């Protein structure tokens, strides 16, 4: 590992460039009290700084380096030319305070994107405003609240979620002042319908049901669920994190959903490793249109303009949301078209099922049925040898793969969730499958090699307890703890 910082290789007088001699009088110096003497910039040569940053960059592993089975849930492969499109001056250089007459092209893009997203999801209108998925969920629940209150139904203070839900589902509900009611899954991995029926009373505002669910399973009872929820006066909402499984084939609106929150950065091509930016548009049926977050773009006498819906839940951010992300989503949709979009979900589902069939002999498959875009195994057969899912995940790194999501969803013991996405070739999938088979064999024959993995990575097994309790957040904390551990002097490091 690159165990140094630039100041460590700094020598007085080393330089990466030579400035010409000053040919004007030096500017008057700042007042003395504003000058800092201890502020030292490292002095290094050009080649040293190139090597330093190249070495740092090589420590990364991303979707551009190799197979990355976290899938669209985290980040699927995003075609590079969408970056070029988003960088076009007409998009990249517009200012949010420009008069709308001067940015008609940008508004047209937003208008058409609203339309496409409504169409893809079988909804009637869309607000692009929310800045990411969790804010989109928050926006949806604000609308749910406003919808019930608007019709004088003021006692609906509960949101029902299945036990397989994403963590943001209960969190957003609580943020909005709702109480959360959790319903367990049945033996097939679907929401337990009888339990759902039992909790759906006049206090329930909505059911948040991810589709397909986090087990990667499509719930075949969805029509009955939708009927039940509506009969009891509640709304049905989708967390759209798993839209990659449905694109072009199934519409949330047709399934009976009243609203859905999307993640453009998951499904519609925006790199967002490192935390952003994202975009979390919300799409709704007509009865919720008036409550959408503001502003929306509409066409009035041939001009694109911003409007605010009649009973809008208001603004959720400055201006109009993350425009750059919208441009990439628009480019993605125009590039793929309706047919291409269908191929995305077809291939995503096919790839996940291919992995499922190839690996189910080696890893416990809690729900042995056709999956959608992701498959959830359990590491529990390996536990007999004292091997945990975490060990399997760490060992995968030695084979050059990024580990999949582990220990989620929470209702599967020792969960291993694999989402290959649509872009991976059969050869890549086969190589990954072979690595998983090799690891299953190692777990039988030589579990120690799993316990001590990874062996070939820049850093070895990390201490997750220490990372939570005594995190080392910068270089000097790391160095002083290293010093404490080894008892060495700083100069020896």
């Amino acid at each position, binding site marked *: 590992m690159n165990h140094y910082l630039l100041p460590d290789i700094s020598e007085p007088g080393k330089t990466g460039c030579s400035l010409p001699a000053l040919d004007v009088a030096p500017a008057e110096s700042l007042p003395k009290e504003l000058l800092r003497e201890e502020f030292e910039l490292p002095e290094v040569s050009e080649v040293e700084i190139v090597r330093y940053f190249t070495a740092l960059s090589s420590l990364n592993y991303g979707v551009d380096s190799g197979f990355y089975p976290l899938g669209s849930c985290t980040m699927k492969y995003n075609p590079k030319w969408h970056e070029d499109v988003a960088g076009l001056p007409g998009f990249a250089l517009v200012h949010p305070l420009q008069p709308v007459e001067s940015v008609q092209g940008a508004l047209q893009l937003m208008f058409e994107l609203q339309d496409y997203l409504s169409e893809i999801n079988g909804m009637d209108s869309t607000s692009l405003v929310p800045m990411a998925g969790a804010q989109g969920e928050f926006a949806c629940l604000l609308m749910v609240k406003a919808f019930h209150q608007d019709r004088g139904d003021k006692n609906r203070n509960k949101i029902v979620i299945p036990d397989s839900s994403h963590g943001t589902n209960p969190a957003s509900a609580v943020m909005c002042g709702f109480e959360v009611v959790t319903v367990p899954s049945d033996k097939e991995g679907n929401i337990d319908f009888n339990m759902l029926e039992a909790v759906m009373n006049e206090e329930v505002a909505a059911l948040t049901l991810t589709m397909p669910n986090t087990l990667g399973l499509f719930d075949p009872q969805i029509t009955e669920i939708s009927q039940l929820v509506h009969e009891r006066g509640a709304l049905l909402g989708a967390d759209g994190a798993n839209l990659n499984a449905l694109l072009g084939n199934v519409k949330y609106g047709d399934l009976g959903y009243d609203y859905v929150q999307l993640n453009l950065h998951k499904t519609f091509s925006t790199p967002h490793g490192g935390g952003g930016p994202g975009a979390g548009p919300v799409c709704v049926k007509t009865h919720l249109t008036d409550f959408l977050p503001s502003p929306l773009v509409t066409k009035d006498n041939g001009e694109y303009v911003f409007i605010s819906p009649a009973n809008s839940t208001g603004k959720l951010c400055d201006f109009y949301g993350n425009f750059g992300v919208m441009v990439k989503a628009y480019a993605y949709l125009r590039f793929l078209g309706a047919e291409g979009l269908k191929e995305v979900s077809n291939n995503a589902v096919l790839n996940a099922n291919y992995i499922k069939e190839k690996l189910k002999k080696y890893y416990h498959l*809690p729900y042995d049925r056709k999956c959608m875009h992701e498959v959830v195994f*359990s590491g*529990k057969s390996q*536990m*007999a040898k*004292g091997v*945990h899912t*975490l060990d399997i995940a760490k060992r995968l790194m030695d084979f050059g793969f990024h580990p999949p999501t582990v*220990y989620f969803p*929470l*209702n*599967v*013991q020792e969960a291993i969730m694999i989402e290959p996405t649509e872009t991976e070739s059969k050869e890549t999938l086969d190589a990954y499958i072979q690595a998983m088979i090799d690891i299953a064999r190692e777990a039988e024959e030589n579990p120690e090699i799993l316990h001590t993995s990874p062996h070939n990575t820049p850093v070895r097994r990390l201490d*997750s*307890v220490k990372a*939570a*309790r005594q995190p080392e957040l910068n270089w000097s904390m790391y160095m002083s703890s290293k010093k404490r551990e080894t008892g060495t002097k700083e100069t020896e490091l």
Partner: protein
Amino acid sequence: MAEFKKAPKEYKYTREHEWICTDGEKMGRIGISDYAQFHLGDVVFLDLPSPGTQVIQFSKMGEIESVKAVSDLFAPVSGRVLEINQTAIDHSAIVNQDPYGDGWLVRLELSNPDELDKLMDNDDYDKFVAVSSENA
């Protein structure tokens, strides 16, 4: 299947994998089972009710955070919290190492000892764990 420490005979258990061990008539120590600590993984933080708090049987009384997830801690019986295990708060690894002993979490005064009848004894709990492991 992983082997778990046998549930101690004198303890009572909940379906949420907490145990209670009564000392004398109305006092009890509460902790989590070996099965619970195994599935949580390394415990990182404990959020326990402060002494004096009234807790209600089967209601949430705190949280346990492990390297995998944050889980709710439920009160096996109703009562008033007398003491929390500072050692477990400072050195959470003890909950993993000795869940039935030094890794206890809360000591409380039971407000209604009859509630103990709603809990499982050790044999029932061992069976319950065996079934949970099969189905999970």
